[in-house]
């Protein structure tokens, strides 16, 4: 875009500055070919706001990099093959057992390659943390409204990364071909079989024949190390480019407006903080991998389709789908020579819907508000009660399902009946989100009221004062200008009005159904009882002038 400029200015500069330092000459060389000066001009002193929750995305990025680094190392030793071999490595309790080469080579990595176990554990711990960090990062973006224009596309990129991360994790978990992961793959195959009409075909094609066959490890391997991470890498780059392009959001505060971004420059502060944070993340994950074991396949044993262990769960990020399948009643319809396996197929359908529910919310909100402006100031969750309540309801839904996915462990560790837990999850799958929605909204409104009180009457100081006539009062300290601004900076939407459906001449105006729905939603989100009107300057002046008479 700016090649003309750079060549034009670089040529004479090269003549006049013969004794430029080596670093500058290298930069000149690169600039002449890559245009790095123009790039750096916009980005070198780019401003990033400071807040711990803005670093959650960095945890995701860094754990992703750690996973790629350790993953490459693991590919040097792992054999993605299902040929059966006898084990003759150094772990005694498996001596002479038949196992696939995949399992055998994972044993080799764990027991005979120096540091192999550490890298395996870093890889797996980083994967769990990667998904957990993406979840928390996504919730941060959701609850602060950072997904609003212009960031909707980046929200979708992030969402896709989370979903792809789940499947990359699942395929990776399956590779060692141990008794636990094999059970998981068997479950997946059973779920694929339940798909009406094409299920058996899909299963045969996926596994190269009947389950387990001899192909799935090799196939999952290429999906796990090439296809999915390749797509994810592209999405990560796009995600980061957009973060740079949009500039980071910030919380309301003195000096912070929708038209600026306040913080520290990339060079040097953020270079040091973000760069340093990479090492901190890597260091902590390495220490966790030194202290705690993960997926000890030697204790699980090689996969055999006629063996199983209790406590068969997927990694946590697939836990909610496990919950769905565990609590579903066993419905099955047999008619006209065909079977519709609703007991498995319905959970298979709800599984993506759970995820889509949170992904589409930003678009619904944008449609209801009709707000086309850019938003760079974050909402405090309490100031968007309906959104916050929806988010908490969704998380409740998700965690109720996670409980369902671990129902056997809840049963043994809390001395409960597994059947009772299953029924609890069945009921709270529906009731949980509703309760969470109502409670959260109430809490948000309460917090808004408190903010309003603080603005109008000041902060409770805890000092008790006795008035001349004997009355005791607590002294309220008025807030300073900064606090007053911060607590009143949020915007409040008015509910949408459709207006009269009949005009002044008595002619009926056509109102589309979608508009009626929109108005209804808008009333639900911003109408009565959904927000506390924020204090106005008039209210404030009236009260403060009253105080002045003391």
């Amino acid at each position, binding site marked *: 875009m700016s090649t003309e400029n750079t060549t034009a200015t670089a040529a004479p500069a090269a003549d006049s500055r013969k004794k430029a330092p080596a670093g500058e000459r290298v930069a000149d060389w690169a600039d002449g070919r890559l245009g790095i000066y123009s790039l750096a001009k916009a980005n070198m002193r780019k401003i990033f706001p400071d807040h711990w929750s803005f670093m959650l995305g960095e945890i995701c990025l860094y754990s992703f990099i750690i996973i790629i680094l350790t993953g490459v190392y693991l590919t040097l030793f792992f054999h993605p093959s299902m040929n059966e071999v006898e084990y003759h490595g150094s772990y005694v309790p498996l001596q002479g057992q038949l196992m696939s080469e995949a399992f055998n080579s994972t044993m080799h990595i764990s027991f005979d390659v120096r540091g192999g176990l*550490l890298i395996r554990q870093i890889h797996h711990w980083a994967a769990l943390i990667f998904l957990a960090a993406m979840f928390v990062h996504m919730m941060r973006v959701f609850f602060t409204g950072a997904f609003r224009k212009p960031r909707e596309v980046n929200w979708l990129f992030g969402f896709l990364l989370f979903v792809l991360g789940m499947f990359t994790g699942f395929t990776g978990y399956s590779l060692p071909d141990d008794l636990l992961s094999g059970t998981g793959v068997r479950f997946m*195959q059973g779920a694929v079989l339940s798909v009406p009409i094409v299920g058996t075909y899909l299963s045969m094609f996926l596994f190269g024949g009947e389950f387990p066959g001899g192909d799935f490890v090799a196939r999952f391997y290429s999906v796990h190390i090439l296809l999915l991470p390749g797509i994810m890498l592209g999405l990560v780059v796009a995600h980061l480019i957009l973060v740079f392009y949009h500039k980071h959001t910030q919380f309301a505060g*003195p000096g912070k407006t929708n038209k600026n971004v306040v913080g*520290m420059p990339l060079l040097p502060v953020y270079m040091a903080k973000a760069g340093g*944070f990479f090492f901190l993340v890597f260091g902590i994950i390495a*220490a966790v991998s030194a202290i705690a074991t993960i997926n000890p396949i030697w204790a699980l044993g090689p996969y055999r389709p006629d063996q199983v262990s209790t406590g068969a769960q997927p990694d946590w990020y697939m836990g909610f789908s496990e919950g769905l399948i*565990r609590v579903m009643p066993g419905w099955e319809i047999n008619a006209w020579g065909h079977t519709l396996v609703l*007991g498995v197929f319905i959970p298979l359908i709800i599984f993506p819907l759970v995820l889509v529910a949170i992904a589409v919310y930003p678009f619904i909100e944008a449609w209801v508000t009709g*707000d086309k402006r850019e938003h760079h100031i974050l909402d405090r969750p309490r100031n968007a009660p309906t959104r916050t309540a929806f988010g908490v309801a969704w998380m409740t839904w998700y965690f109720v399902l996670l409980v369902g996915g671990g129902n056997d462990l809840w049963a043994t560790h809390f001395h409960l009946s597994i059947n009772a837990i299953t029924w609890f999850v069945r009921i709270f799958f529906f009731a949980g989100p509703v309760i969470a929605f109502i409670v959260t909204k109430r809490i948000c409104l309460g917090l808004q009221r408190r903010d309003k009180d603080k603005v109008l009457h000041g902060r409770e100081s805890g000092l008790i004062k006795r008035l001349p006539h004997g009355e005791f009062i607590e002294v309220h300290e008025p807030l300073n200008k900064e606090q007053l601004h911060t607590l009143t900076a949020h915007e409040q939407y008015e509910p949408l009005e459709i207006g009269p459906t009949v005009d002044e001449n008595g002619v009926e105006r056509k109102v589309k159904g979608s508009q009626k729905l929109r108005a209804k939603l808008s009333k639900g989100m911003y109408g009565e009882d959904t927000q506390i009107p924020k204090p106005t300057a008039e209210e404030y002046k009236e009260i403060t002038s009253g105080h002045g008479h003391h």
Partner: protein
Amino acid sequence: MSSQENPAENLPSEQESAHGAVAVADEAHPFADPGLPPHEHRVQDIDEQAARRSERTVALLFTISMLATVAFIASFVAFPVDKSVYIWPIGHISALNFSLGMTLGVALFCIGAGAVHWARTLMSDVEVADDRHPIEAEPEVKAKVLADFAEGAKESQLGRRKLIRNTMFGALAMVPLSGVVLLRDLGPLPEDKLRHTLWSKGKLLVNMNTNEPLRPSDIPVGSLTFAKPEGLEEHDHDFQTQIAKAALMIVRIQPDNIKDKRELAWSHEGVVAYSKICTHVGCPISLYEQQTHHALCPCHQSTFDLSDGARVIFGPAGHALPQLKIGVNEEGYLEAHGDFDEPVGPAFWERG
């Protein structure tokens, strides 16, 4: 989804904000933006000694990192891969894994901690405001782009030459079909593969534990035994695929306690043989409670009543476990009277 027609847009007004950094929050605008607060100095900014202390801390952290890397290499060389140590409170663990992980962790963490401490205490902490620019293009830019596009589109003549357009779309739509066709050989067609197992008339029930054929007298009431068809050996190349369908679970129930008539008829003196593969999604179900005769699946808790035709009494499974009709041959060994009369394992569309 966009709102072309908004009868009444009630967007809130922009927050009143002070123009410029100087506070103008006055009587009239008590909530106006007072602007960035003035910068306050850190100890390190005004006290050179404190700054030196910070410098030494950062350098110390970087030095610890170097030492940790040396320790990493030393432990790699020093500890044999199978050496075990007891570390309280973790337990008996691999010396190599623990030392490599901890030294690597310390080496990395100290680099990070050093860099962050440096940034926090010594680098400038003056907050800077940067202007944002709207993402949307200026109207002139937009007009220029649209005009350029129209020009290009016109020059291509795509709109005029419908024949080119239609055939091009046709070609582009069809070419991916080759890729789809290529996927055909990923696997065989299902045919009736899921309907048959290795069991057939006269095949002996072989004990999984001993690899010996079973006699009814081997199996007392309350016991649990797993069996495979005679002739299937662990070293067979298709063992995994065959056992995934043929695995059997054998229990003995007092004939008076068997509620299902067909179950009784297909058993031998109360010895009943059920498929071990769950009808839900195929886990090997075998959590047999001998007093209740219930069998629970460890994966998703489908519960089957083995004394009542293995019907489902709880959980997500949709139908009973298939039963294998068994009897005794002339030598007194348990044998199958044929294959299962229905497909084993998870249900599928063609199951019927």
